[in-house]
């Protein structure tokens, strides 16, 4: 196997995106994603069984177009990497079964890797060396996690995570109660455009001194969602107009404020002047603006991979697999299963 610039296929099926990516060392060759998002729209959130069924249908065409985009054949590969967790178990199993079957039929080594660490590892594809240690803030509909990454392939620590809803989920739920469609992120963004982010002071979860003692780097968005609901109900009960733009802007500000405040607090507390963002919620322009402005004020260098690499994708899994191979790690074998709560300390299973 080529260990200096291995050709790696990455398979990602942890949530509602079927992702297949191909990298050669730190060079991105293909990144193809099929999403079942539209099928979940009428339910207001990802339905695990619908996602898993869609992965099975999408896998072959997604793999074929990734191979075509990269201009390589399956037999050219040095290795295969697959997400084994965390994520929705039925969805993960589709990717794992496919990856194992490819590994056996092609007689290639298989690496089972951590999805969250993949979000960090994707940055190697963006050029410039990623410096360590770095703090990583990963925000999507499925996770909200703050990591301390001392070394991508050997030393990742979970500083905190959401204790209830993921940030992306909060956007979906608030969009719903404002009568906006799914997915909520872009809808709230649109509605917030003409709103005043200071119009309503919504609560910042786990930010009071007594919460910070125990949950300094943890997040909570369910109280915020309830506060928005209460605000809307009070206005409707009183027969008043609901100022959607102001509520959307104020809600979005509350989410972003708490995300960035906690991430930068980790940078300061731990003396790490670097912050990396990842996950689908990074698509939110206001989040990127606030992160850029406040990181600059705090003297923290901010890294945001291209948006196509921030959402769940197979390239990030291939990139992490390639890093593991280049640093001499042995493959996972064929016995591993899905682990819906795989800890970030398990970078390679």
């Amino acid at each position, binding site marked *: 196997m080529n260990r200096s610039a291995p050709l790696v296929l990455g398979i990602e099926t942890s949530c509602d995106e079927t992702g297949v990516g191909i990298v050669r060392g730190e060079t991105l060759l293909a990144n193809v994603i099929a999403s079942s998002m539209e099928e979940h729209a009428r339910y207001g959130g990802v339905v695990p*069984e*619908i996602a*898993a*069924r869609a992965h099975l249908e999408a896998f072959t065409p997604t793999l074929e177009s990734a191979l075509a985009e990269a201009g390589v054949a399956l037999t050219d590969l040095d290795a295969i990497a697959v997400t084994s967790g965390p994520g929705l178990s039925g969805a993960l*199993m589709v990717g794992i*079964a496919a990856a*194992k079957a490819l590994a056996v*039929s092609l007689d290639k080594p298989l690496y089972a890797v951590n999805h969250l660490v993949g979000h960090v590892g994707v940055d190697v594809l963006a050029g410039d060396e990623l410096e360590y240690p770095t703090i990583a803030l990963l925000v999507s509909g499925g996770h909200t996690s703050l990591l301390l990454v001392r070394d991508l392939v050997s030393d990742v620590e979970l500083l905190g995570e959401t204790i209830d809803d993921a940030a992306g989920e909060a956007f979906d739920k608030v969009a*719903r109660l404002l009568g906006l469609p799914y997915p909520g992120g872009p809808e709230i963004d649109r509605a917030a455009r003409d709103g005043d982010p200071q119009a309503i002071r919504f609560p910042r979860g786990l930010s009071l001194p007594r919460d910070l003692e125990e949950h300094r780097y943890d997040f909570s968005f369910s109280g915020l969602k309830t506060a928005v609901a*209460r605000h809307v109900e009070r206005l409707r009960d009183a027969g008043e107009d609901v100022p959607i733009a102001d509520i959307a802007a104020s809600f979005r500000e509350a989410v972003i404020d708490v995300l960035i405040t906690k991430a930068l607090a980790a940078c300061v507390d731990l003396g790490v002047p670097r912050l990396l963002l990842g996950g689908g919620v990074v698509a939110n322009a206001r989040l990127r603006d606030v992160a850029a402005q406040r990181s600059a004020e705090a003297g923290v260098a901010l890294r945001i991979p291209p948006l196509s690499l921030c959402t769940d994708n197979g390239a990030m899994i291939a990139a992490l697999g390639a890093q593991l191979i280049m640093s001499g790690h042995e493959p996972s074998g064929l016995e591993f299963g899905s682990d819906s709560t795989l800890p970030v300390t398990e970078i390679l299973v």
Partner: protein
Amino acid sequence: MLLAIDTSAGTGVALVEGDTILAQRAVEDTRRHAEVIGSLMTECLADAGVAVAALSGIAVGMGPGPFTGLRVGIAAANAFALGAQKPVLRVVSHDALAFGHYASGGSGALLVTTDARRRERYWSAYSGCDGHVLPVRSAGPGIVHPDALECELPEYGSHFRVDAEWVSAGAVGLLAERLASHGREFAGRSPLYLRSPDVTLSAGPKRVTS
């Protein structure tokens, strides 16, 4: 020569050629499909001393079977076929049970059922087999509470009944070989889930204030 996979109950993998099962491995546990599927495939190939290149195709049981496990076998078969550049031969898993019944001397009308969980059974009915011992399915596959079988299949009392715990991958492979050698049609690409995903459309956000 076919690599055959069935995960409609536990996880089964076999290697078959013509009328012979060359190797067969199975894990009955209905919760470990994704864990064991890879090793079972390598073990079967090793047991029979067969290289992937020597295969003519991949046979797979399309169900009916519980979603999560069933999908593992189908995903594996599709991906294996891409890697090996061989065709996928899809069969209805119940047909493999019926084929086993007729191939071992059974005759006449047959009712096959397997566990669908939630106190229901998957079922398929067969009127008999043709001159090549290929089963002729007359109704199903369907899903039903056992007490309601009579409504689904009024003449079911006259059927010989097989309540199977398990679909052997070997039988799936043998059936696929037989179908291929007689130029018969295979099953479609869609898994036979026979149940819609469990989802409820909520009536909208609930009030948080009383």
